[in-house]
């Protein structure tokens, strides 16, 4: 997975959101996961040392994005996993599968700065304009 695209963190009164943009949807999903990880940990960028299979589904594209991020967040909550990248084997409008790569957070390299309670559906947006896909996701922190 290339890292084409961008993300930025938006800070609000009671929550944190990210906005991301990429040329296509798989890259957009990747940037959203990278953005979420940047909220959780600071320090060295996570390395793609371990791989975990991942599947996600949703009633539509935005819900699919939330479910993908929920699965990545679960890997962090259960195993300390920090996301580095993804390979999609299947990427359909309401389902995806593949593998995410990353490493477990290590005190020497990473500082855990924030607990994300959940990925929310609030004010969720996915704009699928070809060549300039964009998304906004709000997190409960």
């Amino acid at each position, binding site marked *: 997975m290339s890292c084409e695209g961008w993300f930025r963190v938006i800070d609000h009164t009671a929550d944190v959101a990210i906005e991301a943009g990429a040329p296509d949807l798989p890259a957009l999903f990747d940037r959203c996961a990278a953005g979420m990880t940047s909220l959780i940990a600071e320090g060295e960028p996570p390395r793609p040392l371990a791989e975990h299979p991942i599947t996600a589904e949703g009633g539509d594209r935005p*819900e699919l994005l939330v479910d993908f991020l929920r699965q990545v967040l679960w890997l962090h909550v*259960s195993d300390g996993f920090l996301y580095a990248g993804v390979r999609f084997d299947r990427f359909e409008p309401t389902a995806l599968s593949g593998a995410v790569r990353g490493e477990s957070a290590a005190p020497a390299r990473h500082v*855990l700065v*924030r*607990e994300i309670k959940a990925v929310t559906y609030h*004010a969720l947006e996915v704009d699928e304009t070809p060549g300039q896909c964009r998304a906004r996701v709000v997190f409960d922190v």
Partner: protein
Amino acid sequence: MPHERGAPAAHQLERLDDFRWRIPRQGAMRTDGLVFASEALMGSIRGDQSVTQVANVATLPGIVGPSIGMPDIHWGYGFAIGGVAAFDPAQGGVVSPGGVGFDINCGVRLLTSDLSRSAVTQRISSLMDELAAEIPSGMGRGTRDKLGPSEVTAVLREGAAWAVEQGFGTPADLDRIEGGGRLAGADPRQVSARALDRGRAQLGTVGSGNHFVEVGYVSEIYDSALAEAFGLALDRVTVFIHTGSRGLGYQVCDDYLPVMLQAARAHGIELPDKQLACAPLGTPEADRYLGAMSAAANYAFANRQMLAHRVREVFQRSFGPGRAELRLLYDVAHNIAKMEEHVVDGRKRRLCVHRKGATRAFPPGHPELPPVYRETGQPVLIPGDMGRYSYVLAGTEGALRESFGSTCHGAGRAMSRKAARQRAQGRSLEREFREQGIEVRGATFATIAEEIPEAYKDVAEVVDAVHGAGIGRKVAQLRPLGVLKG
């Protein structure tokens, strides 16, 4: 991409009196909105999208009475924080995980003592050190021992009673917890393996964010008869505990949001915001969520019961056996949905009352109150920010009549976490608090920085508004001596 939350409230607001504002029904709204607030508080409420969020909740099927906002209302995920909404199963009413929030049964409990402020002030530093050593707090902090799967199930079924059976506190405590510390509808089978796993190592922990254990004292009394009945006397020391169901509760909410999105689609419910995902009461999806949510609520009751026990142990060690008895005044949820009987339009109805960032506030004589509070009304606990003060109120007839027996829950943020961290940059926060007579212990500088007092609204204004509106009665004010932040 437009960002809706920065925009001013698009809905009309009609001022009804000094503390009430009506959001007239319009568009897809099925009922009016009603916000309790002073003019000054309404100034900041207008600045975010919480008025629109109150109006959005009014579009959900089967809503009864107005969609309600409390004076501490502020922007939340889907439902505003500080919102109350009741739904009638007989009219297609719904239950919504977003109307409870991620931290299911986040709540507060207050312990009272006969210790004087001066006795505790003398040794507050070592007392806070001991509390910090004894009580796991902070990001994802767990316990030394993991519960076995059958033990977690027992906690989910029995709530605070499980903790008492294990020797954490006494049976007398249970009378002084909302619902006896156990929601009867709890169904652990509806709690996912992920949620159970998250619950195994976090029982008896505070967590992070705005959760805390606070040692304080009674600084002012407004109603001496009620204060006496609640065991509150000037200068006597108190302990506040604020936490909820930890990762287990977040996971339950997280697990059920997609289920509810599907259910809403299947039942043709149009959602102005997906975080309002819901299912009609009586459907399998609603039953499953209510079973899991009640189980998570029981976990939170058990969690606060265990924390209170730890605090009691530390006080016993610090002040000597018998000299530092900590009595439970009350324990209330402020993120919950419950089936309750309410009289609407002269008719008694069983409704699903959602309180998200709102506290139950039942009046004197209410049958759900334990005998000890039957004549006073329910104690209502309203924590403020860590530097100023908190309040004890009592439930009123006005609350039962106008807000489904509910009132406010706290101060509400006025500043983003990032802005608060920037404001705190370069300051010695611990020294600043010490100069004000408050010993602070916290997991990290960032945690304390995000929770500095100026990041919050003044809870006194919030409490004055609910008192003025008659949906709560001021009893006493408490001020902090020591705070353990998560």
